[in-house]
């Protein structure tokens, strides 16, 4: 196998090197890639959308279809993880463990028995380890700021690097950080599985709904300039606002997908205490 692999790799590499001889030299302003379409984007995007960040303008406006289906791909990745891993049926009844929050006393209930939900006791796993004090407290302080930064990134995708994808990933990372520093159960308690599933779909729906709104107003799909009538602004600003709406949709979808994948992977679909 090793030999075959080496041969395949060598042949492919040789072909690529042969092809690389025809590539334009690195950082050449006159290379074909930057002479046909991109000058239009660079020179016109500010006039047409009033968005200084060209990448955001191209991402959400000129190539809106592409991004919409990328969002759909992310959504379906989350769904696939759920269907692959989630074990919904209950296995044979096993004993449950509860921990008294204030004193740390653990009690074990025999199979089938359940404790009424109360604030004093929390359900834990057999292999439960207490979260570390320093990590827990430091993360508790850091998480709100990370979330605020993520929202800032989503809101300011027009003027600085950022946008829905980055902000959504950071927001998801903050929830993942909560799950790591505390445990998965409390993270799921704050953000239930149902909510995540709904958010995941809502994100894609916001994106598609913005496009459909344009369609309803008798324009092309995802042509935001027609939103000017709804928002009472001029068409150029309307395009910038349309981009913001789309970015929010992307952010929500990415956020929910990241948390969903993490929850499923780290607990192998059982939603017990994860990593």
């Amino acid at each position, binding site marked *: 196998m090793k030999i075959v692999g080496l041969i395949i790799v060598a042949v492919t590499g040789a072909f690529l090197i042969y092809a690389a001889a025809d590539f334009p030299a690195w950082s050449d302003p006159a290379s074909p890639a930057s002479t046909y379409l991109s000058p239009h984007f660079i020179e016109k995007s500010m006039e047409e959308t009033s968005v200084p960040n060209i990448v955001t303008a191209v991402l959400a406006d000129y190539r809106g279809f592409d991004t919409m289906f990328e969002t759909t791909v992310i959504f379906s990745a989350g769904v696939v993880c759920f269907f692959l891993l989630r074990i919904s049926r209950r296995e044979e009844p096993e004993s449950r463990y509860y921990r008294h929050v204030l004193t740390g006393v653990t009690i074990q209930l025999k199979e089938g028995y359940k404790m009424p939900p109360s*604030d004093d006791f929390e359900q834990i796993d057999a292999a439960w380890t207490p979260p570390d004090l*320093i990590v827990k407290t430091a993360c508790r302080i850091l998480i*709100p700021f990370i*979330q*605020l930064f993520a929202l800032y990134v989503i*809101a300011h995708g027009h003027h600085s690097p950022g946008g829905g994808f980055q902000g959504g990933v950071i927001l998801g990372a903050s929830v993942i950080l909560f799950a790591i520093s505390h445990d998965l159960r409390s993270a799921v308690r704050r953000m239930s599985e149902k909510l995540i599933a709904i958010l995941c779909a809502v994100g894609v729906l916001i994106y598609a709904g913005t496009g459909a709104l344009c369609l309803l107003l008798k324009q092309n799909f995802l042509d935001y300039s027609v939103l000017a009538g709804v928002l009472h602004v001029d068409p150029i600003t309307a395009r910038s606002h349309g981009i913001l709406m789309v970015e929010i949709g992307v952010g929500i979808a990415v956020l929910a997908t990241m948390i969903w994948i993490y929850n499923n992977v780290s607990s192998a679909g059982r939603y017990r205490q994860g990593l």
Partner: protein
Amino acid sequence: MDKQEEEELGHDHNTSKAENPDQGSGRRKNFGPYMVTFFIMFGVWVVLSGKFDPFHLSLGIVSCAIVTYLSADLLRPSMRGLLIMLFRWVPYLLWLIKEIFKANLHVTYLVFHPRMMDLIDPRIVKFRSNLEGDLALVTFANSITLTPGTITVNVSPDGDFKVHAIDKASGEPLPGEMEARVAKAFGESDG
């Protein structure tokens, strides 16, 4: 805006379970912590954003409201403590930075010393601290990690510290002055 926001926060009241043991079972009746969180967040937002037109400021208010709704129970500040802390923290931070400098010069000396292996003598020091409160303990632990040749290995919620010291001289003065200063910064100066 404020009214709507408080309505939103009212929902949070139900969902924030008693996962904070030190907070006790007392139901939050006042919105003080929420307002403080909101204003801290808004201050940070202004620094981050750097745009002061109404559109971006309203985006900021919405974002801060969302963050307050999501995680005010994580930050849980109090108005009085915050103001006092601000005045007490500045001298502590200055002192800490001075200590960090000394610590780093010491470690750098060890790193570049040709016979480094003879100089270092790692050991684990155990002591008990009188500090109470998670935040004070964590500040103390992180300060220990940042200063002379010592790293906090383990802290129990009761205040038992285990510290890894790189040589004998580093581990000896603990808890010492630093604990007193942390206690002062957090208003626990009786300890």
